[in-house]
């Protein structure tokens, strides 16, 4: 099997989110980054499990500058066989999907994995756009994936139940929690990652129809007022006069 896993770089979950003064960009100074957990824990690990069971290779692909090599090396340390980086700033889902599609269209991957969303912009757009651009079937937010021959059975957690779908390769899937378990790279994997190929590819020209007008941080949470149980009348007064909900 020849598998492609799309990986993204996202701010660390503990990072403090601040905007540039014009509100058009994330302020990235001092920001710590990680590999998007949905890409790392579920998409990449399930792809590796499939190849370990049936043979083949896993390529990881990322659209980004050379500072992204850090997360690409981590993917190689976890077990991916080779990596590709499209050398461009990932300005939008549209741009990223076009870059990956341009690379993947002649590579005949059996399966293309993405995480169900990135934990920064939460767009969930790239996998669907990628499937469309490559004219492949797409299964979104799958929490289980089993292969038998060329047919995959996937579980999708839906409101109040599970949807089970079958699809023949090749296709694009976006991985949700449950598809696999996080793998921590070991020291040998980290050392081997240095010697695995990381190919840097020039981007293709893409006209991006989308531009960001403005970001705004959510309003700050107000403090919590604690009221002793014996002062219930004070609670009623505050709900009436300050919160104005009763």
């Amino acid at each position, binding site marked *: 099997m020849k598998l492609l896993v799309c990986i993204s770089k996202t701010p660390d979950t*503990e990072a403090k989110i601040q905007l540039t003064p014009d509100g058009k960009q994330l302020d990235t100074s001092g920001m710590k980054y990680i590999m998007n957990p949905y890409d790392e824990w579920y998409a990449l690990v399930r792809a590796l499990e499939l190849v370990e069971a049936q043979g083949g290779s896993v390529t990881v692909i990322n659209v980004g500058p050379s500072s992204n090599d*850090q997360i690409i090396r981590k993917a190689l340390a976890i077990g991916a066989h080779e990596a590709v980086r499209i050398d461009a700033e990932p300005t939008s889902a549209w741009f990223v999907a076009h870059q990956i599609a341009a690379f993947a269209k002649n590579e005949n991957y059996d399966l293309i994995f993405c995480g169900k969303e990135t934990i920064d912009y939460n767009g969930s757009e790239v996998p669907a756009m990628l499937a469309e651009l490559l004219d492949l079937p797409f299964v979104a937010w799958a929490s289980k994936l089993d292969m038998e021959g060329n047919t995959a059975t996937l579980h999708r957690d839906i409101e109040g139940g599970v949807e089970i779908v079958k699809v023949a390769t090749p296709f694009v899937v976006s991985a949700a929690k449950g598809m696999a378990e996080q793998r*921590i790279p*070991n*020291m*040998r994997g*980290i*050392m081997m990652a*240095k010697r695995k190929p990381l190919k840097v590819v020039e981007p293709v020209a893409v006209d991006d129809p989308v531009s960001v007008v403005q970001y705004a941080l959510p309003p700050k949470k107000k403090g919590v007022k604690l009221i002793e149980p014996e002062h219930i009348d004070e609670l009623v007064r505050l709900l009436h006069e300050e919160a104005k909900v009763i």
Partner: protein
Amino acid sequence: MDKTDKGIQRRAREDRYQGHDYYLIDELLTEEHRLAREAVRDWVKQEVSPIIEDYFEQGKCPTHLFEGLAAIGAFGPSLPTEYGGGGMDEIAYGVIMQELERGDSGVRSMASVQGSLVMYPIFKFGTEAQRRKYLPKLGAGELIGCFGLTEPDYGSNPGGMVSRLHDDGDAYVLNGAKMWITNSPVADVAVVWAKDDEGKIRGVIVERDWAGVSAPEIKGKLSLRASITGELIFEDVRVPKKNVLEVQGLRGPLSCLSKARYGIAWGAIGAALDCYDSALRYALERIQFDKPIAAFQLTQKKLAEMITEITKAQLLAWRLGSLANEGRATPAQISMAKRNNVYIALQVAREARQIHGGMGITNEYPVMRHMMNLETVITYEGTHDIHLLITGHDVTGINAFR
């Protein structure tokens, strides 16, 4: 699969530790160093933090962690891969020890002993047959090792040891008793130091199931409670000559101790960082007199001094690591870093405990556990005072030990 022992409560609360790097020392590290650190940090958050308080409280060793330590490659990471190591450099070894000790000094000790005190001497002084026989299994955690140097009456003065190896044809007959041996009650093999008939110190590899070997556990420790410690008792143990290491004199055990002390110089920073991280978080959240206690000058003094000392220790460790990578770190330089970094870690732990107020004495927070652990760390692998005398000897040329 959860492999924790019965009766151990897992903590639901998430370990939110983040590293602190005030002087951007990360920029001095390579991609491998950072990947190694993140990997061990993730492992500690998953495997150690949720269970360590309960193991510590019950005074039990989480022996199931040996398997995980082996799987991530924490045993002998700087030894060559063909002998079960990781093929990494000394700084990588340091950051691994730091992240393990961030979890618990006892867990770091489990890895230090296996890597620096068992695998290292077999690699450095072992015959090719000994290396092939023991190292891959030790690296994979299939065998657990321990290191027998200290005796009940010979701690800081190991050269006075009374354990004996008597030449008896194709074997040596080993008699003696070793004390304060990390991992000994669960170990399969021991690297043991004893004097031969000529009074020269020799190293031998002893297997636990040989006749005459016993390893009773030392109970009642109020420190390193999640690490198992014991004695090693040898009564007419026949050690085949093929199990003798190719080294003579104190140089053998002391070179192992240099390795382990180097790891401790890094490891102690981990304990200090965990205490600082917890104290900083607590000081910003805890409200007294209508403001966070972090707003008070006396709290800020504590926090500022803590991060200053941690930063100095990080720089010391990084420079020592760079020297070690070039094979230039002297035992005296290692002594200075071990002594300083463990000492400041203990100071940081004590200040952090005060910032936590009453909560600081409970195991809701990791601080008191680190503080109790560090009382061992400041004593083992060369006491605080002995390391001072090593520096004194080094700068004056005069030995004040005797």
